[in-house]
């Protein structure tokens, strides 16, 4: 129906695959797009969070006063889902305790004072096989680096057991401002291909697709030039649309498969991994290098040198910002993550975690929020853009009146908080905020 109308009003027929719903926000990627990855100087101290979103928090095995080297294990998993955590720098442990975390809560973390003694990681001698790779990934502490931070080894194990057909390597990077994955695609293409092949081996999938949005066509072309046409790895170009990078939407766009509610991608025979994760897998298998650093986009108008920086895990946001030359008086808002789903910060002593994709700074003008509590005018715009097809307006009206049971019935739990609805809402209703709050309340009420 849409396609027919699309054609009828004279729009060019497009072959770009995509999903239903979604929005086209102002991307602002040009700020950092052409900035190559560049390491930042080592900070004075790092705070390495032990947090992981699934399973029990790993148990610290170092204590105050211990001397650690970069890549040394500082925490052990407590259950099958957990991963090892490594020190990202050489130095002395100053404290193991509760520290603030970007998502807005406290987690156990180890504070390490940076010292001397960095050593390069030598290449490994042999290439391991499937299950062995999974073990290496776990030992290297690799988690999903696209933002969710879900343990990669656990996902791979599940995928292997379910017998997935396809591996999707997610290079969509649909969040405005962020270009870290794009730079990884451009600069570490070979590592990416190698990492993808390792992931294929580990998961048992037959084919891999590397999904890239159409605004990163040069990355797509570069990738296409480096893999033969008959290879198991195939790049695909997707329409640039937010939230194209969300797992379910990516699967829908590439494979036209729908993940059932409450289900996993493995249920439809798919495994999704981020491009940075694939590179980290390559590093782990080829060099035995654990996940101790990552590429972070540091962008926004209040910065003099926005760019893509290679950052040690645990670097504090304030140290990170220094590298890009911030205009301190003009910083209105500091967002960890992208502006659509990221967390704004009231304090800057929070660390870069393994899943931190970027830090976006908004100027004072950009940060102004119209605090509107206008009632819903039922324009339905939130319904058209919702990639999960939820009746967002109805859910939020229910939440506004405190009827959490109704909100849950309408699909509250299915919301992934992508923020498309709140982006388009002409009444400026705090839709995502209601939903996030209601999810907490609904949980409490249920109990």
């Amino acid at each position, binding site marked *: 129906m849409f396609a027919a109308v699309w054609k009828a009003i004279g729009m060019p027929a497009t072959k770009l695959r995509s999903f239903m719903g979604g929005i086209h926000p102002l991307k602002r990627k040009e700020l950092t797009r052409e900035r190559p990855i560049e390491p930042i100087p080592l900070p004075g101290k790092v705070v390495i969070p032990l947090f992981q979103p699934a399973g029990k928090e790993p148990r610290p095995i170092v204590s105050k006063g211990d001397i650690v080297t970069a890549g040394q294990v500082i925490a052990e998993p407590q259950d099958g889902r957990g991963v090892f955590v490594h020190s990202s720098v050489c130095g002395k442990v100053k404290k193991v305790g509760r520290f603030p975390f970007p998502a807005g809560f406290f987690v156990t973390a180890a504070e390490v004072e940076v010292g001397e003694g960095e050593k390069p990681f030598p290449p490994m001698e042999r290439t391991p096989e499937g299950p062995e790779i999974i073990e290496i990934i776990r030992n290297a502490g690799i988690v999903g680096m696209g933002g969710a931070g879900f343990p990669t080894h656990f996902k791979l194990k599940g995928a292997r057991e379910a017998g997935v057909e396809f591996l999707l390597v997610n290079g969509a990077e649909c969040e405005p401002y962020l270009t870290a994955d794009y730079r990884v695609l451009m600069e570490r293409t070979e590592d990416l291909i190698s990492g993808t092949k390792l992931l294929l081996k580990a998961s048992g999938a037959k084919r891999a697709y590397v999904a890239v949005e159409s605004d990163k066509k040069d990355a797509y072309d570069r990738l296409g030039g480096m893999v033969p046409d008959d290879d198991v790895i195939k790049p695909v170009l997707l329409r640039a649309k937010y939230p194209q990078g969300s797992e379910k939407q990516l699967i829908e766009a590439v494979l036209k498969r729908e993940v059932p509610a409450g289900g996993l991608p493995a249920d439809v025979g798919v495994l999704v991994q981020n491009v940075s994760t694939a590179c980290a897998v390559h590093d782990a298998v080829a060099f035995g290098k654990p996940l101790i650093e990552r590429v972070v986009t540091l962008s926004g108008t209040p910065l003099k040198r926005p760019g893509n920086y290679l950052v040690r895990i645990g670097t504090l946001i304030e140290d990170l910002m220094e590298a890009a030359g911030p205009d301190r008086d003009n910083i209105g808002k500091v967002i960890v993550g992208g*502006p*659509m789903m990221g967390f*704004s910060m009231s304090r800057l002593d929070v660390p870069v975690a393994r899943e931190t994709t970027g830090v976006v700074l*908004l100027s004072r003008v950009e940060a102004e929020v119209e605090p509107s509590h206008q009632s819903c*005018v039922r324009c339905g715009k939130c*319904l058209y853009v919702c990639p999960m097809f939820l*009746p967002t307006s109805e859910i939020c009206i229910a939440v506004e009146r405190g009827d959490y049971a109704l909100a849950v019935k309408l699909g509250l739990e299915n919301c992934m908080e992508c*923020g498309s609805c709140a982006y388009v809402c002409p009444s400026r209703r705090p839709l995502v905020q209601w939903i996030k709050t209601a999810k907490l309340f609904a949980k409490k009420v249920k109990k």
Partner: protein
Amino acid sequence: MSPKLAISISPHIRTRETVPRIMWTVVLVLLPAGIFSCLNFGWHVLSVIAACVITAVVLEALIQKLRGKEITISDGSAVLTGLLLAYNLSPALPIWMAIIGTVVAIAIGKHAFGGLGHNIWNPALVGRAFLMAAYPGAMTTWFPSRLAGAVDAMTYATPLNVIKQSLPQSLPSLGEMFFGIRGGCIGETCCLLLLLGGLFLLWKGYITWHIPVAFLGSLACFAVIASGGKPQAAVFAICAGGAMLGSIYMATDYVTSPVSVRGMLIFGIGCGIITGVIRKWGGYPEGVCYAILLMNSATPLIDRLTLPRAYGEAKRKVWV
């Protein structure tokens, strides 16, 4: 120390479209039709429009003040309600009746339910239907079209009246009807201007095509079938009466129409068919207003029946 950071929950960027922006745009694209009407029916029209708009704004401010709520007359919704109501009135209506209609529209149609976003029926149409029931005589006294060269103001009928009552008067040509050279309500005559405005709103994304197309389409189909297969009956049905004004500007009212695409199609088709039925068999010559009001009443049910199927869910229970 640098100034305090702002914190809020994602998303941290927003589109520029806001409700006031949309409302004022609609008001703006409606203005040409009003100016045309002044030329067509004389300057009394202007005073009717002014009376409606001013009453609407003043009353809204008054009610919000009495209820101790924030006064939101600057969002343009009251202006739009007043304007749309005026466009739905006869050009010959006394000013005091227009004011009564506006009071009903704003006080009963809108604020009895809690104001913008809470009303069930389109306030302007509530005002019109009320006036129609309260003062049927005055509401069905028409001015002739000046542009058609008429000077005799004594007896005049709209094209739909001519059809309904089998009057000996001659009908305007379809072309004249499209350009609005005919009698009728203040804002409904010039289909061209209304259509252009509608296309502009469509282009801006303020309305979607579903309701107007479903409305006019089903009305046209009904007219063709009812007339025994004459295609020009479709054009007549769309251009006569308030179908164009109603389908583009009133039925698409965000608050009182369904939110989902399927719901909007059902809503539009329902409006079209009810309009056709009232025109063909009913006691009134025109049924657009009642059709929209009736479908407004059904909107909560339609909304409920057409909730989108959530991603990844096989089937949604209808009666939640």
